């Protein structure tokens, strides 16, 4: 697409209009978007065309439109986080990620649906209704960033921004047959991201190819003085790594298969596609070793203590005083009464569950046994990663234990929902980068599965190199991209 813009074969206005048309055609059925900014996107597209006509494009992606997850602040465009409590809130500023997209010339098509405050693995916890998986509209698109993944899978957007706190970029990528990258923690600014669990949250690319993800990552990544947890080091050469990987040669690369991330609880078809990917990488010259990370079996419990604890304090900012919803009970209510009524009305079930759980984990008397213990196990997980990365350059596993399940199947069974993040959570606990790329379709249901590639912190280039290589190897097997095999969505307009 960028090449066609370079050649003058098409214009940003044409491309942007085509995507807006596609959104009008299929988003009634998919519901990937909460907000579409037709006017703003076309205005920015026209400005991009003017830059190209003047011979001064702002970068390789100038003019390529993008969708942004609704947890990222966009000046002048509503940002709801999928929650009633922020319905109609229009941020007076841009997140750094958004500012960088604008500076690089990418027109913003709109804001994508998500589980409320990014809590969930199915996008069913959005206060504004679920997003449907383009592969099967009765199924979930993953979560929390199901809107971004579905938009890209349904060709409503060529690129999207997601955020990954426990797998919210990678797991939707796996179940929609798209590519999703969680950068190293601190590699992409969190300024303007509404915090869920601030020590885990990380924004990253959602795309249809590894190279596109690398191009987008280079736009949004790098140090930001507005985020004190942003890493003040140059981002590795990601596009170069993706281009290098595309030859499919993995000679000398040591690939570690994590024995704890597989087996029981994983769907047979997902495991079969994963085994094939490993075999292809072996044939391409990689040295495959099995590595053990024993503390990973505790990763889920660790995450579901630390996350609610951080979330319960982060979400305390929704107090009905300065922005967002305010519900005023009858009589002469105090500010506290207003807070209670507003938070009751404005938050959905999953948000309430996690706030209460987090409040519990931080209560005196239970703090050491739960939150304190979880922080220690977090150290053990990091030690396991360090040991594993002494034996292997990258680690691999299935991204999600199953393919997309039916909408409604797990929505009132929180524990079953949490298990979707089994394989993705360890990376968030330790801040390491990871990518999910499509590994094929599971035999039993014909739905996409993903393979996850993890690298040490600040070695994001490795996930792009190995990801691009595996993508090329799988593409040769399939004779094209996996998404080519997705069913056609033709204005179903449900």
């Amino acid at each position, binding site marked *: 697409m960028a090449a066609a813009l370079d050649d003058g074969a098409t214009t940003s206005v044409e491309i942007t209009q085509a995507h807006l048309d596609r959104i009008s055609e299929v988003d009634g059925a998919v519901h990937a978007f909460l907000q579409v900014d037709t006017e703003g996107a076309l205005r920015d597209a026209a400005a991009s065309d003017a830059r190209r006509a003047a011979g001064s494009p702002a970068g390789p992606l100038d003019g390529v439109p993008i969708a942004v997850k609704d947890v990222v602040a966009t000046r002048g465009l509503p940002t709801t986080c999928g929650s009633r409590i922020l319905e109609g809130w*229009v941020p*007076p500023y841009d997140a750094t990620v958004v500012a960088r997209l604008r500076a690089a010339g990418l027109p913003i098509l709109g804001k994508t649906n998500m589980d409320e405050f990014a809590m969930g693995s199915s996008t069913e916890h959005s206060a504004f209704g679920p997003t449907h998986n383009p592969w099967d509209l009765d199924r979930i698109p993953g979560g929390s960033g199901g809107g971004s993944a579905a938009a890209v899978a349904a060709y409503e957007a060529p690129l999207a921004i997601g955020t990954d706190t426990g797998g919210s970029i990678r797991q939707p990528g796996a179940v929609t047959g798209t590519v999703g990258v969680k950068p190293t923690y601190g590699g992409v600014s969190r300024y303007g991201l509404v915090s869920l669990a601030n020590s885990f949250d990380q924004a990253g690319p959602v795309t249809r190819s590894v190279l596109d993800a690398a191009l987008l990552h280079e736009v949004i990544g790098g140090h930001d003085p507005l985020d004190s*947890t942003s890493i003040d080091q140059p981002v590795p050469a990601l596009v170069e790594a993706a281009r290098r990987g595309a030859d499919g040669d993995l000679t000398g690369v040591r690939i570690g298969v994590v024995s704890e991330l597989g087996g029981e609880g994983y769907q047979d078809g997902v495991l079969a596609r994963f085994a094939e990917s490993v075999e292809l990488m072996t044939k391409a010259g990689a040295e495959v070793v099995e590595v053990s990370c024993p*503390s990973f079996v505790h990763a889920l419990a660790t995450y579901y203590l630390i996350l609610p604890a951080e979330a319960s304090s982060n979400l*305390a900012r929704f107090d009905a005083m300065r922005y*967002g919803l305010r519900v005023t009970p009858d009589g002469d209510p*105090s500010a506290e009464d207003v807070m209670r009524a507003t938070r009751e009305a404005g938050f959905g*079930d999953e948000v309430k569950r996690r706030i209460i*759980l987090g409040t519990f984990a931080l*209560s005196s008397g239970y703090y050491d046994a739960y939150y304190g213990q979880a922080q220690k196990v977090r150290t053990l997980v990091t030690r396991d990663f360090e040991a594993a990365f002494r034996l292997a350059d990258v680690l691999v596993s299935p991204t999600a234990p199953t393919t997309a399940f039916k909408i409604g199947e797990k929505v009132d069974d929180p524990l079953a929902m949490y298990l979707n993040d089994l394989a993705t959570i360890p990376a968030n606990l330790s801040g390491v980068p990871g990518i999910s790329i499509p590994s094929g379709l599971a035999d039993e249901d014909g739905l996409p599965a993903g393979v996850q590639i993890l690298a040490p912190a600040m070695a994001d280039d490795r996930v792009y190199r190995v990801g691009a290589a595996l993508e090329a190897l799988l593409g040769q097997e399939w004779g094209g991209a996996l998404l080519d095999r997705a069913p056609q969505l033709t204005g179903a307009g449900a």
Partner: protein
Amino acid sequence: MPETSEHPGAPEDGRAAVEQPTLSRDQVAHLADLARIDLSDAELDHLAPQLSVILDSIASIQGVAGDDVPPTSHTLPLTNVFRDDVVRPGLTAEEALSGAPEVEQQRFKVPRILGEEQ
């Protein structure tokens, strides 16, 4: 909102709190109160058993790491970040108040913060 607070039935010593990883309806009501959420009776009936199931499964974490393991609160080696004290553009009062539920005289208008007895 308070992050830590007294909890009914919480033992003095956190380490002793390991035996019964369940949350009663009353405990959930109290926690919701601490978190400033007015849960309805129906929600308490619905959420309390779910929370007990979740807690039961994450309670397995207890005793996994020994006393010699340092806690991780953050994966990066964080240091204080300083910058020069220079004026930068910020939000105007109008922009800052643009999302406010109620505004009066260029200020956020909030309900009374003191109770009758105060």
